[in-house]
């Protein structure tokens, strides 16, 4: 027992200071892509390099668009572009409450709208999340899981994961929704009491990601459920997920 208490003292304070301060991320971290239509010459190389058809740039420079919902942040487009029209920034704040908000291009505003007042009064300081892994590779689950550890300590915001969907307020979906998981996902949704939310985390859950178009998958959660929040990434950094949740709950400073 004393050992445990000693260890507790030595391990020290480790909770990420977010959202009060921005976290320190790896210098090689690939965050929000920056598009520079001015530099684009519509050569289409980026489109050819993209494994998920997230980017389209073959018509005109001004039509350079990147769908964050499909992007797996592999950086192939950045390498393919000789003009430097695409670069990955260090911005981890990514996510939108509208699917269209994820298509970066002209005049797009990627925005996480807070919940309406009534929902906010309920969920603002108390929200239970039921996570359903619907056919992905397990990486998003791992990064969702990590939020509950003391490194991020989700519960200080009154957010937690629920064992039973009956106790849950939000359904967090990861994975492209495999055909085999579709029914289970629906059943989980039906098992939750109203009012309730759906959060799609990761490229797979938003659009099918790398698996998009494969016959065994359903290309994302909105094929099955009404999604309230999209958090892009493959997998999204835990901080991006936390940012999305807090944005939705209007808890960001």
């Amino acid at each position, binding site marked *: *027992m004393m050992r*445990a*208490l000693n260890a*507790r003292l030595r391990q020290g*304070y*480790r*909770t990420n200071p977010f959202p009060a301060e921005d976290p320190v991320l790896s210098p090689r971290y690939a965050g929000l892509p920056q598009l520079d239509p001015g530099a684009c010459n519509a050569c289409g190389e980026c489109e050819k390099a993209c494994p998920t058809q997230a980017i389209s740039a073959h018509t005109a420079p001004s039509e350079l668009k990147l769908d964050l919902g499909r992007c797996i942040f592999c950086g192939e487009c950045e390498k393919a572009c000789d003009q430097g029209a695409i670069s990955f920034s260090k911005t981890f704040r990514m996510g939108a409450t509208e699917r269209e908000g994820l298509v970066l291009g002209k005049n797009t505003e990627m925005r996480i709208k807070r919940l309406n007042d009534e929902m906010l*009064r*309920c*969920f603002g*300081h*108390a*929200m*239970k999340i039921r996570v359903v892994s619907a056919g992905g590779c397990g990486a998003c689950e791992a990064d969702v899981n990590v939020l509950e550890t*003391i490194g991020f*300590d989700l*519960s*200080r915001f*009154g957010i*937690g*994961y*629920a*064992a*039973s969907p*009956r*106790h849950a*307020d939000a359904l967090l979906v990861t994975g492209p929704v495999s055909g085999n998981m579709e029914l289970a996902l629906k059943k989980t949704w039906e*098992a*939750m*009491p*109203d*009012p309730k939310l759906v959060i799609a985390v990761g490229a797979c859950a938003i659009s099918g990601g790398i698996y998009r178009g494969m016959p065994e998958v359903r290309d994302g959660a909105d094929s099955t459920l009404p999604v309230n929040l999209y958090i892009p990434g493959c997998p999204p950094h835990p901080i991006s997920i936390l940012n999305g949740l807090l944005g939705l709950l209007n808890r960001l400073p």
Partner: protein
Amino acid sequence: MCSPFWWRSSGGSDYERYASFLNSLCDCGTIRSPVCGHHPKDEGFLFREERISLFQTYRDLFKLLHKGIVYSKSVSWLFKLAPLASLAASLIACAWLPFGGMTGLFSFTGGFLLIAYLFGAARFVTMLASLDTASAFEGMGANREALFAVFAEPALLLGFGAVIVAPGNSSLANAISVAQNTTFSDYGVVAALAAVSFFILALAENSRIPVDDPTTHLELTMIHEAMILDNSGPDLAFIEFASSLKLWFFYVLIADIILPLFHVGLVARICGTFLIVFVLAALTGIVESSMARLRLMKVPQFIGSAAAFAFIAILLKGIL
């Protein structure tokens, strides 16, 4: 003592009694937050670094009250009765519970029996309700609860026996006021043993480590949590509030037993109760932080030890 039967406490104004009841309602959640986070699924306070709100339990309850309900196709009226019975039992128990020298709302000879049996009735209805859902997990929860109750119930009554019956008092309030005027050597050992017994029970009855793991997400290892997997919305709020009250009940009960050792006035006793409750919460956290959960079939021995402590406390009365 002309009659061993006694109805209503002698001391304390009505105001005090209501105040102590209201106090239970308002404070039970605030003690639960630091002990187990705002939800029994969070880690104990020792391992969290950011403090969470003291009022988190109430925020959760507020939210749950605003949620809808999903009933299973399998359930009958009994399932809908269970949350009500749980909360009603906890409310009655807190109304009876003396607080810092203030007597409860009511008190009579053998009142503790009624409280123990009301908790039992709530447990019974909850077990039935969980079996009503036709789910193996809930059956598992009910089964484990039923088995552990076999050890917990005698321990609870023997604990009360040690504090109330063996010293020749008629009720807990009476026992406290009598103990106020006895010496440390008369009462100290008995109080300590009974307090240990009740503390073990508090861990067991409130799903704490080493009996149950409040942080577990795993249906197969749950006890109490497994029984309420299918409850939602206001029903869940009632159950959560009832368990907050139950945790508070056990902590205050232990405080009630320990406090008479210090012959102090009313205000000091009230402050002392809060202090002891806080210390017990911290102690719960430390126990949770320093040992693993018992293998499920070892739990009866652990709860049985509570009965053993109470048993010794009663026998000591005969020797001393």
